[in-house]
């Protein structure tokens, strides 16, 4: 039997057993069907960005081909269609997060912009000298720097909850940082560098018990963990479209309406106003108050299509497959001589970070690239995590539901080549 028919037979077997059919799903992602440096592409950089299914590409293409127009403005048919499609996408996001209302769904450029929006519009008026913002040691730079700048401006202080050697939050230490002067807790749902899944429910309960609101950086979680923002009771939840199989340049800030209503606009201009005169401007209602200027209409529509796609394959099934890949990769990569895994939390997203004795992660990534394997190498925008684990940089393989066990094998073979070259 040749490889293809083996694959087909294997796929048929899995399907008969009701298992996740990764080979069929791969067909939905045109980018995966290519060779790089003469080798089949093995894309393991999904924590940086995910690939886009045909359905997302088609939705964007359809918008620009048939419906392209501005939203919330014209009375003509194309503008009506564009507005409907844009608002439908908002409805899909609301359902995806189980938010109470579409008024709580703000379209932004991505997670970074969402966090900046909250820091400026929510944090700035509330923060004063002596106040504190609590983060964890595993945050991405985009959930550190906006708060750091704000603290500097206001004479406030950043407090950082420590993590242990597995990369898990030390909850008791975190709890000890929650004080009457704490104005907000900003925490990653899943760490981009370590894969750690934070105990969000406990974090939120502990903060709320002291009247402290919580912002969740969901960039690494939204595509991999079923969300229910009402059940979680988070005050803000931020994520990016491009890490959820949607386009880049679109993201979402969920915020409780009770907070959003109190918050001043973040940016100002068109679409976010109700009336303008040279004396006074009144602002539009939610969510438009926070969407100044022409938004990324095609991006929002593409994100809506990505959510539909995820629903069609089943986020829970996809996540279960990713966990299977992670377990297999952890075992196989961990067994390569000289490899040290960075981030061994008991509950993890499908992120496998590691270093190799005597070989810099950039050299690992270059050797792997020539085998067709795309991984991330560097500080992955989490320099405090690098410092915590005493490494200048890491190599990171991150998985999506379209990855296969065979691809993990290619990664391992590639790492053996690294050993050959660097002895």
């Amino acid at each position, binding site marked *: 039997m040749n490889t293809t028919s083996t694959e087909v037979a294997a796929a048929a077997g899995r399907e008969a057993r009701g298992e996740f059919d990764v080979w069929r799903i791969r067909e939905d992602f045109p980018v995966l069907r290519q060779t790089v440096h003469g080798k089949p592409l093995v894309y393991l950089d999904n924590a940086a960005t995910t690939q886009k299914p045909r359905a997302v590409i088609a939705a964007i293409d359809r918008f620009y081909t048939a419906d392209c127009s501005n939203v919330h403005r014209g009375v003509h048919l194309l503008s009506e269609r564009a507005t409907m499609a844009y608002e439908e996408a908002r409805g899909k996001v609301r359902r995806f997060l189980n938010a109470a209302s579409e008024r709580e769904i703000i379209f932004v450029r991505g997670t970074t912009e969402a966090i900046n929006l909250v820091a400026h519009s929510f944090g700035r008026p509330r923060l004063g000298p002596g106040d504190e913002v609590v983060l964890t040691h595993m945050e991405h730079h985009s959930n550190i720097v906006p708060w750091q700048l704000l603290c500097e401006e206001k004479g406030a202080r950043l407090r950082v909850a420590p993590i242990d050697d597995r990369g898990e939050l030390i909850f008791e230490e975190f709890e000890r940082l929650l004080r009457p002067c704490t104005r907000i807790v900003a925490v990653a749902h899943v760490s981009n560098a370590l894969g750690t899944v934070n105990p969000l429910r406990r974090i939120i309960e502990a903060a709320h018990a002291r009247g402290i609101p919580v912002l969740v950086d969901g960039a690494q979680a939204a595509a991999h963990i079923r969300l229910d923002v009402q059940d979680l009771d988070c005050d803000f939840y931020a994520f990016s479209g491009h890490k959820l199989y949607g386009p880049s340049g679109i993201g979402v800030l969920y915020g409780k309406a009770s907070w959003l209503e109190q918050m001043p606009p973040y940016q100002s201009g068109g679409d976010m106003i109700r009336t303008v005169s040279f004396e006074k401007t009144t602002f539009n209602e939610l969510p438009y108050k926070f969407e100044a200027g022409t938004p990324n209409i095609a991006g929002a529509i593409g994100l809506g299509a990505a959510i539909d796609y995820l629903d069609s394959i089943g986020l829970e099934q996809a996540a279960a497959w990713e966990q299977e890949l992670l377990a297999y990769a952890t075992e196989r990569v961990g067994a390569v001589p000289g490899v040290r895994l960075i981030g061994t939390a008991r509950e993890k997203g499908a992120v496998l970070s590691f270093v190799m004795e005597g070989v*810099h*992660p*950039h*050299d690992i990534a*270059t*050797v792997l690239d020539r085998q067709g394997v795309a991984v991330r190498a560097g*500080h992955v925008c989490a320099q405090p995590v690098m410092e915590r684990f005493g490494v*200048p940089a890491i190599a990171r393989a991150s998985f999506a539901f379209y990855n296969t066990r065979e691809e993990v094998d290619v990664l391992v073979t590639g790492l053996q080549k690294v050993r*050959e070259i660097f002895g």
Partner: protein
Amino acid sequence: MEELRDLYQEVIVDHSRRPRNFRVMADATATAEGYNPLCGDKVMLYLKLEGDVIRDVAFQGSGCAISTASASLLTESLKGKTTAQAEELFEGFHKLVTGSGAPDKELGKLAVLRGVREYPMRVKCATLVWHTLRAALKGERQPVSTE
């Protein structure tokens, strides 16, 4: 594998593992610091100048095989050269790794880094220490950044 060997030649792997002149120079007359914020590579370069002759060169830092080997090879190739000759080497080396001109025959051992030209994302690794050298010779205080 063959392709990769063009980049990771024995000499490069050797220099990355056992970098030459890898030390702090207490009596340096010129120093400069280089940093690549994208990958975190850091290099501190020390020069001892007598007039316009480079009497001694050393470096410290952390980085990938390419950046470490490039720094190590630089220290070996600069000893006894004048600052004008160092500048010529910079030009020649830059052409070598970017593939923008015929490599200078005078480059000697530095020519082992020729393979870098096939890896555009890695050119900065090889040139970081050379930009740092330029800063040291000009007496610049700000750390050199590749970005």
